[in-house]
């Protein structure tokens, strides 16, 4: 077996955090029965991806891409821009999901998946 | 010198009845105009097809490629001797059946007549398409449309029984087509072409086992429609359809399309040489002789007249397959002649059954005591056809059976000769009681003569007379005999 070195973990801690967060979110989306918790899971998942993009763009010692005299080296601004867009997508998805949940609660009187399934039969 | 003549006639022949179907639907509210279209389409179709005959008789073929689907696969038409034989047969009998249908449908005041005529015309289009297709793909396309266009005719009565018959029909035929299409795709991948070639386009490039499996799949695929046992059970239950449908489609067009496919596969896909090499020809001959005997035995115990005729059809279709599978000139001659002659005889029998039903509303043989005195003309014609089915001279059935026996003898197959003779005896056993009952048993009450309407009677007389005429004068000019002669080159 290959020995996992501490350095290897430290060098990639951002990816490990991304994976951990994404799995937490994924688990919540699939396994939780409460609709709101599903949405929370979805948000965690998406945030994990955002973090992945942001940390991917970051290079040690470089500055944010803003025109300031004296700073020569910038990090790649593109992932930030992409993530801005992705955040918008995330917000809209959450908004749609929340309004759906409000409607579901009105019609079924519950936001627990199994209870709703029981009612639909 | 054989030539491919480019001609759009085959397409016209297919399109005529398609157009007729559309016109029939358009004029659905005017029944005279609607039925005028049926008759005129049938006559036009027959004219177009027979106008191709002189060209074919000189040994040429007509060809037209519509479009190509894949490299070496196209939707194309080729009229050769075998194709025109089927085409003429189907289109000629369509004229008679149209006339008969009008009489039948009007006397019984059937519902949904527009649907009936429209799908009938479609079925004929498909049958013509099958006859004239130049490759397996085209043949399959029309084969499939034939299945679908006959389905509404089978379910015409709209009773639960009819629906279950229709369901059974679809299950059998669609399963058959699936196997057939699979076989077609496999042979395309083996040979890279699907065009019918005299002598077959498959060669021993792949292993013998593969070819044997392929042949078995083809036979199962086409065998459903040609009602080889044990794939036959849709045919007797499909007899719930109106009698003209049983007469033309279930005695001629549909089942003969299956046999036609078998002939195409034997002579144009595999080639008789390859089949004999692999010993598959004889295997097929023995396979179908099982059907010949067993179907006759089944026929013995049927009380419903149309069902008995259906089992007789099953048995007789296998005669054709037997002759063709023998792969010698006499066998082929007998098989293909039976292909034609059986059509005339069986359609007469079905027409008679329909006439009896229209006049007396009786379907069972046990109720037919003394019907011969009530309907003398119908029953005499019935008797002539029965003679033909049993192979008595001077009807045409004798000639085809004679060639079949010659072919079996030539192939040194004593067992097949015995099969043919036994089945003739069985034919007599299940047909003669009907005639005897009709003429010599006393009816419950005597009502005097009451025949079916002339629109029905005339087609009956014509077909019966033709079956005699073909027996007396088989090699009349332009007769089927000459077309069949052209096919000797297939072997």
């Amino acid at each position, binding site marked *: 077996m290959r020995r996992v070195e501490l350095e290897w973990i430290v060098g990639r801690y951002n990816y490990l955090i991304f994976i951990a967060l994404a799995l937490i979110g994924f688990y919540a989306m699939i396994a939780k029965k409460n609709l709101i918790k599903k949405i929370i899971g979805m948000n965690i998942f998406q945030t994990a991806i955002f973090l992945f993009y942001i940390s991917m763009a970051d290079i040690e010692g470089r500055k944010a891409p803003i025109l300031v005299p004296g700073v020569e080296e910038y990090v790649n601004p593109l992932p930030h821009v992409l993530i801005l867009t992705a955040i918008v997508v995330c917000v809209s998805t959450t908004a*749609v999901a929340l309004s759906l949940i409000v409607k579901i609660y009105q*019609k079924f009187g519950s936001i627990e998946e199994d209870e709703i399934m029981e009612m639909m039969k | 010198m054989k030539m491919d003549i480019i001609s759009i006639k085959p397409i016209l022949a297919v399109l005529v009845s398609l157009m007729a179907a559309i016109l029939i639907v358009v004029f659905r509210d005017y029944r005279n105009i609607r039925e005028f279209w049926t008759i005129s389409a049938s006559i036009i179709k027959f004219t177009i097809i027979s106008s191709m005959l002189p060209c074919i008789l000189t040994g040429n073929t007509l060809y037209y490629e519509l479009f*190509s*689907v894949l490299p070496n696969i196209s939707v194309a038409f080729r009229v050769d001797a075998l194709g025109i034989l089927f085409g003429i047969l189907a289109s000629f009998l369509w004229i008679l059946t149209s006339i008969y249908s009008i009489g039948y449908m009007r006397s019984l005041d059937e519902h949904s007549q527009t649907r009936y005529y429209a799908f009938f015309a479609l079925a004929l289009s498909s049958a013509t398409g099958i006859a004239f297709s130049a490759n397996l793909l085209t043949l399959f396309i029309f084969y499939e449309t034939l299945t679908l266009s006959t389905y509404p005719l089978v379910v015409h009565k709209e009773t639960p029984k009819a629906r279950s018959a229709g369901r059974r029909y679809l299950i059998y035929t669609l399963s058959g087509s699936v196997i057939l299409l*699979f076989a077609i795709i496999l042979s*395309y991948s083996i040979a890279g072409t699907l065009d019918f070639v005299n002598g077959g386009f498959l060669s021993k490039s792949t292993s013998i086992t593969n070819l044997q499996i392929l042949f078995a799949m083809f036979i199962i695929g086409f065998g459903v429609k040609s009602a080889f046992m044990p794939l036959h059970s849709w045919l007797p239950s499909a007899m719930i359809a109106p009698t003209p449908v049983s007469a033309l489609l279930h005695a001629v067009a549909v089942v003969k399309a299956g046999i036609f496919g078998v002939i195409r596969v034997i002579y144009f896909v595999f080639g008789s040489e390859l089949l004999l090499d692999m010993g598959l020809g004889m295997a097929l001959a023995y396979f179908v002789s099982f059907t010949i005997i067993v179907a006759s035995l089944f026929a013995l115990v049927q009380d419903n007249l149309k069902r008995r005729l259906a089992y007789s059809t099953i048995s007789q279709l296998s005669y054709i397959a037997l002759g063709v599978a023998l792969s010698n000139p006499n066998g082929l001659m007998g098989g293909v002649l039976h292909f034609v002659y059986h059509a005339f005889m069986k359609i007469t029998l079905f027409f008679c059954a329909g006439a009896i039903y229209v006049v007396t509303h009786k379907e069972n043989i046990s109720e037919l005591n003394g019907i011969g005195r009530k309907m003398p003309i119908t029953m005499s014609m019935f008797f002539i056809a029965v003679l033909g089915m049993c192979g008595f001279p001077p009807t045409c059935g004798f000639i085809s059976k004679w060639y079949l026996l010659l072919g079996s003898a030539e192939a040194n197959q004593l067992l097949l000769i015995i099969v043919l003779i036994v089945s003739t005896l069985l034919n007599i056993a299940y047909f003669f009681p009907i005639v005897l009952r009709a003429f010599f048993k006393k009816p419950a009450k005597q009502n005097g003569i009451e025949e079916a309407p002339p629109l029905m009677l005339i087609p009956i007389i014509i077909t019966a007379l033709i079956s005699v005429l073909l027996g007396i004068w088989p090699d009349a000019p332009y007769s089927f005999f000459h077309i069949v002669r052209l096919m000797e080159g297939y072997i």
Partner: protein
Amino acid sequence: MNIIQNLPILVVIVPLIASFCMPIIGLFRRRYCFYLTLITNFLILIFAMLLLNYVINQGEIHYYLGNWEPPYGIEYVIDHLSAFMIILISFIAFIMTIYSKEDVENELPTNAPLFYTLFMLLTASLLGIVSTGDLFNLYVFLEIASLSAYTLVAVGKKKDALIGSFNYLIMGTLGACFILIGIGFLYLVTGSLNMADIALRLPSLYSSHVVHAAAIFFVVGLSIKIALFPLHVWLPDAHAHAPSTISVFLSGLVLKVGAYAMIRVLFDIFTVEFFVNTLPIAEVLSWMAAIAIIAGSINAIAQKDIKRMLAYSSVSQMGYIALGIGLANTPGIMGSLLHILNHAFMKGCLFSAAGAIIHKYKIRNVHQFKGLGKKMPYTMAAFSIAAISMVGAPPFGAFFSKLFLALGAIESGKWIFALIILISSLLNAAYFFSILERAYFTKLHDEEIEEAPISMVLPTFILAMGCIAFGVFMFILEPFLRDIATSLL
């Protein structure tokens, strides 16, 4: 302004602007929303035809947004495949606009502006997906399409639609997240988002695990979007409970565009070499597809609700398309593309016929379809044409797509797939013929013709004519599809 030069973007922004106008118009004259949609969709249809004409005669169009050259800016690429999808989308969108008039008045009387806003947004984003050449742009449009689809499913009056929409949202977002991760991985190793640019840089990285992971994330994410079998659970509820117009859109276009994205990603970004040889993606995909074909059909047989049945049938039919992608040879891809076209028309026709039936008689259970053939002759005629085409009977369109797929399966030596394709036709026949049998061959006493409104019957009929035309005039399509297939491989 040079219209032809700007067509790639016009096709996207015209419906987008129309959708932005819709709420304002909705505030004042609710009725006009329909007309604006109709006019816009007609305009797009014309644009699409011009584009197709241009692409066929002059070749690909590359359009740089804001005149920023790739790989810095966003590039729109219209090649044969895109033009093919654009014409399909715009045609169905136009036809379904006509259909939507009655449907919207019936199913969501107060929400017409909302409906048409989302409808145009959906159309715009679908067109965006197929015309963009930028991976992230693809993701954004995919999400816009999905978001408007979630909302459109829920917009009706039905209670169950909300649950369907919610499950669709959860699964769809999951798929989108996977795609986003995939894009991130690709960006990580190539530093580019332009598809052509990535494709150029990838071959040297085929052994990289990051690329492998990216490919897998893409395939799983897109499989959710196209509802490939084990990931299909969201589909039946969403498609069955949506308004009929939207059901047509969802199974006719949204799924197809997912398939398009899959073709683009697999064939244009990762090449055949990669996903057939380096990773066994093609193998897995085709087996999944084969299972989907059978399982979808069997599920469909068990359904009583007509729209649910059609939805499950979509699962099965998407299996065909995925199978063609997995086979990754010329006939396979041609079969896939042809089936994208055919299935859009067939399923569109079936769903709109079902919608017309539900509109007129308020029946959804197929057992109540008795005698419908005589009551609604035109709708049912269209339904039967599409159903028989679905079964794969010649000379209708789907016969040829199945034929191509089967040939592709044989060509790649996997005859078992050919057999599955053919057997599934029988399963299709089982549920479609049972409907047809009930509709046509049952005796009823009250057989008066009462058709759905003409604005519903006409679109249904046009779609049915499409099913016939693509079969009969296959030879016109064939060289075009072959071009696309060879350019992809």
